[in-house]
């Protein structure tokens, strides 16, 4: 098991991702991939073992390799690095950092609750994603009474009302978060149906061959299976969603889960390549698969949104091109409008749509687009000039000159502003002459 099994100081080591890290340079094993995804700069070695259900030596091996490759730096609490990293730390907090996995700098002696309680809150909160039984601190076979008692005990400690009218600082939100989760655990474990579901999942997700992924914490209930903890700050899911998540969480054996993660990562890479080469539909399909394989990775979701945006942009570009080739102006305008559906904020498309609308005498439409243009980029003088031009054509000269003034305030020398000022002047003179 190595020398790291001993002192709590070693257990509290906090690995942190190195800056400018490129995980692609590593060929990750499933275990390493999982571990790497859990390193967030505040999770300690001990917690990594807990949440992964991994043997300590495995965690050690992986972390050593990461450290050797420069992927992570490991902080020893109380050590020079920790002190340097936590520059904001209160003196008291620093002194206590050694016996706590709490990120230094979070406790505050000025608040209306004791430092000890603050630490307890932070520590409890850091383990909020534990299995429900562990969260309540009850055995797997606890009866309804024990579960209720545990819920009441935790309520008395963490319910926000306990600290009514005290200065709680950021601990107020933490208490609410804790209590909500505790209440959720109580609710799900008190309902025989959901409890059976949870327990079945716990029972059916044991380690595969050789106990490779099994890790028993001395004196505590056995923890099985990795914990795809949603990133902190993500909302607590509703009951049905929760069940779904529980199913996912516990039915997939850890090894398979890790493999799925790797596969998801590969798909994500493939999607990037496809997107880069302009094959957007293919990219979106790969991305969807990646999300299906690893629904907990936030990066995939934002990547998916990016690709969707690119798909839309490409479609808009194509429509734009077709609009350019179109013979009939009506058809061209129609194509531009469709392009705007995909890319509503595209300045060039809007400009062309305005020009075309004016040509086909759809002045109301033109004004709508011109207003959008001004809204998107109100700091461009020429956009105001465009709007003024449309308004002038609609015969709304007062509004037109107001729009022109708005533009002139930004840049009076803008050629479009100058030209429009002349146009407006002429139009006024003409109508003045006619009247």
């Amino acid at each position, binding site marked *: 098991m190595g020398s790291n099994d001993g002192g709590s100081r070693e257990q509290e080591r906090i690995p942190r991702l190195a800056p400018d890290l490129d995980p692609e340079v590593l060929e990750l094993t499933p275990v390493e991939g999982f571990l790497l995804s859990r390193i967030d700069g505040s999770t300690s070695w001990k917690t990594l073992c807990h949440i992964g259900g991994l043997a300590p030596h495995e965690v050690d091996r992986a972390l050593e390799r990461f450290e050797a490759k420069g992927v992570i730096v490991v902080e020893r609490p109380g050590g020079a690095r920790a002190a340097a990293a936590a520059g904001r730390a209160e003196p008291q907090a620093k002194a206590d950092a050694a016996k706590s996995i709490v990120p230094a700098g979070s406790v505050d002696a000025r608040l209306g609750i004791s430092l000890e309680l603050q630490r307890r809150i932070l520590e409890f909160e850091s383990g909020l994603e534990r299995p429900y039984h562990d969260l309540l601190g009850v055995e797997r076979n606890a009866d309804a*009474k024990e579960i*209720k*008692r545990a819920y*009441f*005990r935790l*309520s*008395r400690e963490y*319910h*926000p*009302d*306990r600290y*009514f*009218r005290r200065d709680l600082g950021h601990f107020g939100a933490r208490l*609410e978060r804790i*209590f*909500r989760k505790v*209440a959720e655990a109580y*609710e799900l474990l008190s309902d025989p149906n959901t409890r059976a579901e949870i327990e079945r999942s716990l029972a059916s997700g044991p380690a595969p061959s050789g106990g490779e992924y099994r890790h028993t914490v001395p004196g505590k209930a056995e923890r099985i299976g990795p914990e795809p903890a949603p990133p902190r700050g993500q*909302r*607590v*899911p*509703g*009951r*049905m*969603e929760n069940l779904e998540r529980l199913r996912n969480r516990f039915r997939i054996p850890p090894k398979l889960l890790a493999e799925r993660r790797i596969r998801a990562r590969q798909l994500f890479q493939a999607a990037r390549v496809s997107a880069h080469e302009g094959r957007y539909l293919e990219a979106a399909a790969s991305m969807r698969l990646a999300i299906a394989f690893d629904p907990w990775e936030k990066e995939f*979701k*934002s990547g*998916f*949104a990016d690709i*969707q*945006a690119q798909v*839309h942009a490409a479609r808009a570009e194509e429509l734009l091109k077709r609009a350019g080739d179109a013979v009939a102006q009506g058809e061209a305008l129609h194509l531009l409008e469709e392009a705007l*559906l*995909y890319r509503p904020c595209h300045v060039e498309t809007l400009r062309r749509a305005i020009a075309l609308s004016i040509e086909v005498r759809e002045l109301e439409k033109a004004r709508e687009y011109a207003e959008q243009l001004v809204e998107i980029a109100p700091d461009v003088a020429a956009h105001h000039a465009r709007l003024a031009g449309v308004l002038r054509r609609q015969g709304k000269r007062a509004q037109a000159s107001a729009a022109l003034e708005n533009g002139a305030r930004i840049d009076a020398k803008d050629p479009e502003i100058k030209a429009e000022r002349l146009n407006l002047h002429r139009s006024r003179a003409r109508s003045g002459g006619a009247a």
Partner: protein
Amino acid sequence: MSRVIGIDLGTTNSCVAVIDGGKPVVIPNTGGYKTSPSMFAIAADGKRLVGHLAKRQAITNARNTVYASKRLIGRRFDSAEVKRALDLFPYEIVEGPNADARIVIAGKTFSCSEISGIILREMKRVAEEYLGEPVSDAVVTVPAYFNDTQRQCTKDAGKIAGLEVLRIINEPTAAALAYGLGHNREEKIAVYDLGGGTFDISILELAEGVVEVLATAGNTFLGGEDFDRRIVEHVLELFKKSEGIDLSDDLMARQRLKDAAEKAKCDLSTLQTTEINLPFIANDSTGARHLNVEITRETLEGLVSDIVERTMKSVEQCVNDAGLDPRAIDHVVLVGGQTRMPLVQQLVTRFFGKPPHRGVNPDEVVAVGAAIQGRVLVSDERDLLLLDVTPLSLGIATFDGHFATLIQRNTTVPVRKSHVFTTTRDNQSAVKIRVLQGEAERADENHMLGEFVLSDIPPAPKGQPEIEVSFDIDANGIVNVSARDRSTNREQSITVRTTGTLSEEEIAQLVRDNADYELPDET
């Protein structure tokens, strides 16, 4: 630190208590009574009267005396409850600017929050007189079935009275707190509350200082006043038979008889026989007529037994809702003056198989509990924690007009729940989220708390976008609803501050107005 008072703002009577020297004290008013009628009147000389003073002149000034306004608070003018009140109450009820019910007496219109505020102010004054120090914080009780609007109106009333309402708590919960039950071991408690105008039954569970509401039921139009009315009708009938005179349209006679009936009813809780004696109740060609009727406990029980039976039906339903057997209830607590009636105590004892708790006066038990909760909130001795629950389910309207519940009623707060919804049309770019409260299946039959729009959803086939709607209720009962488009992470949210029927400006104005009214009283 100023002390927190506990106020039981009742339909017929109100009561105030405070923790003094570690012990709950029910504060007597100037007349020495520990409860004050929840009544407000404007006398012929324009003077404002509250409590006993208002009640004393109610007979001669029936049209300008407000009672039982708690029945109207936070309700829409067109609701069934208000319609019923229109028939029953002698004072004028009109529709307010926010479709709420308002009360007109002596040519002046009052909102129900204002009336409650006047009564709360009186209770505040009683407390300040007793304590000899100003009071600014209170815990006020409401029936367990009160919805958010009714609770908010009660909070507004506190504001108008110059009080900060730290918490609104449920009456049965307060009663359980007053008995100090459940401090050590786990106990299940039934609170049977038969007040002047309403009946509530609640099953609570207490353990290690934590109180949880398991179920509640009741009837908002059933109470001690119904007992009085039965006696009045009975006596009118007897008088008509013996004297040939129908007094039912004689407002003055009815009020006198009502008071006498209430007194007779109370007497019969300890005596077997009593008399109603009202000299000069009527006049005709033969001269003055006097009313003198003897009533026995047996007669009374015959008159009202169906009412008591009806309460027991609710009790049975509530115990079933809680998933319990009546024998599983460890304690039965009685609240409300009407529970002094031996018949009520007999039926309750028979149903639960054990006699109810005695010790705390049933008229005062709720105020005592409120004072205890107030003390628990602000003091450092926190050996008790009240787990508050949402009184009604919260959810949103679905496109087909149904109500999708996100947070079930009786869920402990603070709580957060979310659910994923999707679009119903291709390329739908926006969804409207309507936030509702209630238990009805159809969306429009529930109470709407607010609405907002999540826009700029990227074009996609229907059913594909994932819109996550989250409800968040904090410890103060403030509801926050947010909707997030999972693909873009775009988020829209609203904080639903349930409003009462008064606007902020109206409340501010009333706070100023009512502060003015204090001065002439003192000079």
